[in-house]
């Protein structure tokens, strides 16, 4: 009985991840076609309205794919909070964070938060152009990163730069940066890069 319920739930979850983006894609396609039509007619306002809505739907597809990149909770952690489309947003826009918080089951009040931020065209900072941050420069899976950890306050952040995205791993309640770095190494950075090309 329990196995049947598990199978049913697994099928449902898979179906949701397949059907939802497909529905968004259909909507977006119609909106793009409408935008083209309005633009050709000289109805610029209507064209921008359709294009703006289409862009939001397209960003939602990207966001939903990026959510799948967030690592599952490793041993000693539980997922405490996950935001899939940007805080309080029905549809995602570029530049919003996709976050997941992991609460430690071993260390009291300790948690790790992973945030994926897709850079908008206005604020794109590539690996080459990224301004130095506070802390020390390091590399995670071959990507440039800045590690800033305050041992006294037991918190810190590791910021990894990809060409069109940034990944931040925040740590609080741990007495060193090792957990944060280990978390960062578990993130599939090349998948994030391929989704934000």
């Amino acid at each position: 009985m329990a196995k049947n319920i598990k199978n049913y739930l697994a099928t449902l979850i898979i179906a949701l991840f397949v059907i939802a983006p497909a529905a968004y894609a259909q909507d977006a396609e119609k909106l793009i076609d409408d935008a083209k039509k309005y633009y050709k007619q000289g109805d610029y306002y209507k064209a921008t309205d359709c294009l703006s809505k289409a862009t939001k739907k397209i960003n939602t597809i990207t966001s939903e794919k990026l959510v799948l990149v967030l690592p599952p909770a490793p041993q000693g952690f539980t997922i405490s909070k996950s935001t899939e489309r940007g805080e309080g947003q029905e549809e995602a826009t570029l530049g919003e964070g996709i976050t997941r918080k992991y609460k430690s089951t071993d260390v009291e009040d300790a948690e790790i938060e992973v945030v994926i931020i897709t850079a908008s065209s206005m604020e794109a900072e590539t690996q080459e152009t990224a301004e130095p941050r506070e802390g020390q420069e390091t590399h995670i899976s071959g990507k440039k990163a800045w590690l800033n950890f305050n041992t006294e306050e037991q918190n810190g952040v590791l910021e990894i730069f990809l060409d069109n995205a940034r990944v931040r791993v925040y740590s609080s309640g741990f007495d060193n940066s090792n957990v944060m770095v280990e978390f960062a190494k578990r993130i599939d950075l090349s998948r994030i890069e391929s989704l934000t090309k």
Partner: protein
Amino acid sequence: MGQVMKRFKIFSVFIVIVVFSPVFSAYAQSNEKLIEEGTNFYKSGNYYAASKVFQEVLIEINSLIAKNIDSILPVTYKNLKLGKMPEEEGSQGVFTRSYTSGNEKDEQIIVTIAPASILNNKSAAPDDAGRKAMDVKGRKALLDFNKEYKAGSLEIAIQNGSIYIYAEGFPDSSAIVDFANHLELDKIESFLK
């Protein structure tokens, strides 16, 4: 002499049409090309690239709408002159234009036009928080003027958008209301349809 002047005028109009038609046409073509490029990215599953291209197109079309609206704003109002529109103005949808006399201490009027898409498609009717409701050319408007500070605002709800006028250096609200009545609201609305 009169005949020569008339011919010169016709010739000038002809030159303007010949010079500017290809400019606008090039604008339209490049945007159409970009939309096509974004569509191709989208169809091939490169959603991020598609989104970036469409954002670029949105900036271009918004700038085009802003330029169109700017072209029908009064060039002067009494002793105030409309300044030159900065290149990037309007690219995000909303745009602001200023009327000044050139002397910072004098009166000034600032007009901000925001399409409904910027207002998240909410009703363009402004909130009446302590403001005086009035009518400007048949549109609902709200006036807020402080005689002590010689400054105030008038927000007009237009179809698919809102016009916010701020004025300072005037003894009362008559100038801001008069300025609003100088605006071609029908034409502004036609660019936001």
